[in-house]
């Protein structure tokens, strides 16, 4: 337990020292928020069902952060640790591989949460965002969405031959999702054909779930999202445990 805490704290420091990862998790979403906030403001719009641009951006940018930490941070860290022999070194100690994975999950999760917290705080203070949902529901949706995406990251880290390939595959999966799932731009702005295609992107389900819960929709309206994300989570755990390699 003591080693798990130490390892978690160490990984937190390492995460924050990695400028690119910290930027895309903590700073970039805020930049997007202020950019689109300054262009569109946060006036209620019929297109968004009476919500403002910033109101709907908080849950969708949260989905964007989840995608970034899941597909980039988790993938790159784990794949690099394996490739560079960092896991090999850990393996010579009594520490369990589960502790290594757990510390990683805790840190990436906490950083994703911090990214969301910054968004919510900035949204509240600067744009007075409307929140009509239940905070616990949103948190639960956030946990489900995050963990299901971390699963993809661990699978990539475990199955790709090198850290470089894992990073590229992660990016190739991430970028279309940012633009086409309604995470980076509101889906309402996308053409109908693209909106249909977005049903094949896992991030779409995170966006749907979080946007719905944010405005206070019932879980019952999002059974498909919950089903897809739970399925991803379970598959993610099974496959990442099976494909975990020390070297």
């Amino acid at each position, binding site marked *: 337990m*003591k080693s798990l805490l*130490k*390892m978690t704290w160490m990984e937190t*420091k*390492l995460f924050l020292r990695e400028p690119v990862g910290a930027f895309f998790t903590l700073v970039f979403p805020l930049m997007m928020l202020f950019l689109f906030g300054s262009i569109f403001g946060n006036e209620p719009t019929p297109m968004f069902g009476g919500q403002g641009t910033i109101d709907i951006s908080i849950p969708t940018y949260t989905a964007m952060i989840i995608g970034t930490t899941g597909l980039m941070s988790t993938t790159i860290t784990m794949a690099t640790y394996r490739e560079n022999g*960092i896991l090999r070194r850990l*393996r*010579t*100690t*009594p520490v369990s591989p589960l502790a290594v994975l757990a510390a990683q999950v805790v840190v990436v999760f906490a950083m994703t949460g911090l990214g969301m917290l910054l968004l919510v705080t900035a949204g509240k203070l600067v744009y007075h965002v409307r929140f009509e949902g239940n905070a616990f529901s949103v948190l639960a949706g956030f946990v489900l969405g995050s963990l299901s995406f971390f699963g993809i990251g661990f699978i990539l880290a475990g199955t790709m031959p090198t850290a470089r390939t894992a990073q590229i595959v992660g990016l190739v999966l991430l970028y279309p999702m940012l633009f086409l799932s309604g995470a980076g731009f509101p889906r309402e702005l996308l053409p109908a054909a693209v909106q249909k295609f977005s049903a094949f992107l896992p991030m779409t389900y995170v966006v749907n779930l979080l946007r719905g819960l944010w405005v206070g929709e019932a879980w019952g309206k999002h059974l498909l999202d919950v089903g897809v994300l739970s399925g991803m989570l379970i598959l993610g755990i099974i496959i990442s445990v099976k494909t975990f390699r020390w070297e």
Partner: protein
Amino acid sequence: MDTIVQVEGLRKTYGATVAVEEVSFEVREGEIFGMVGPNGAGKTTTIECLEGLRKPDRGMIRILGMDPQRDGHTLRERTGMQLQQSNLPERMRVWEALNLYASFYPKAADWNELLSQLGLEEKRNAPFSKLSGGQKQRLFIALALLPDPQLVFLDELTTGLDPQARHAIWDLVRDVRAKGKTVLLTTHYMEEAERLCDRVAILDHGRIVALDTPAALIRGLGVEERVVFNVDGTLPAGFEKALSSAVRLEVQGERVVVHGKNGRKVPLVSDVVGQLTKLGIQFLDLRTEQPTLEDVFLSLTGREMRE
């Protein structure tokens, strides 16, 4: 004296390649035991089987009386390991690495003490990526010493280091042994094995081809020793016949090399100097060349290039 490591009939294959075959040896308490051999001789495979990182196909291994496969967890608490290829995260600082790894062991050594013992005090806050090769190796030795282990495995500790760093690390290894710990190391530097190890196993093609103290290995080979000097003028004909036992003489201008069998009654050098003095021959720059472990190694494993 206790047996710390016991290996019998170890065999390990990777697909069709036999990496290690019929390897048996023992390491006693307080010993520095070395495994040397060309690349691919099976040194690292052997040490990794002992560390429990690889599962042998056949054979018996006991480390501190335990089986590395069955009692791996306990052994990892009580042995220190330095791996041939491993790293730490680039941005992890020296003190953070020691502090983190110390938390893995139930009875960890004081890492602050290790930090100064290994001369890393001033690198305390340096990130891992900014350390030199020698500093990284010293940090890995410190990590290997953290569990306050009875046995330390060091796999190719000084590969790629400059001579200063290498000598400093040899001193460190001797210090480790002086604290009563047992050291099992691999190297492909013969000089390192000869200077550092109490006993050496020479591996080739996955088998142990010789195992003894460096001095006994050199004696056992019966390699010749040489006396080299320059003469002022020329050496009288038949000089070699005046020596007490058979030698071979090689003369290149004023440079003379006398080759003699090792293990003679009268040391070759006093024999040669005695004759030169007796005959009143002026000589310069006289030195002897003893066979080294490297000669033993080459005569056992051949001189062709390996990869």
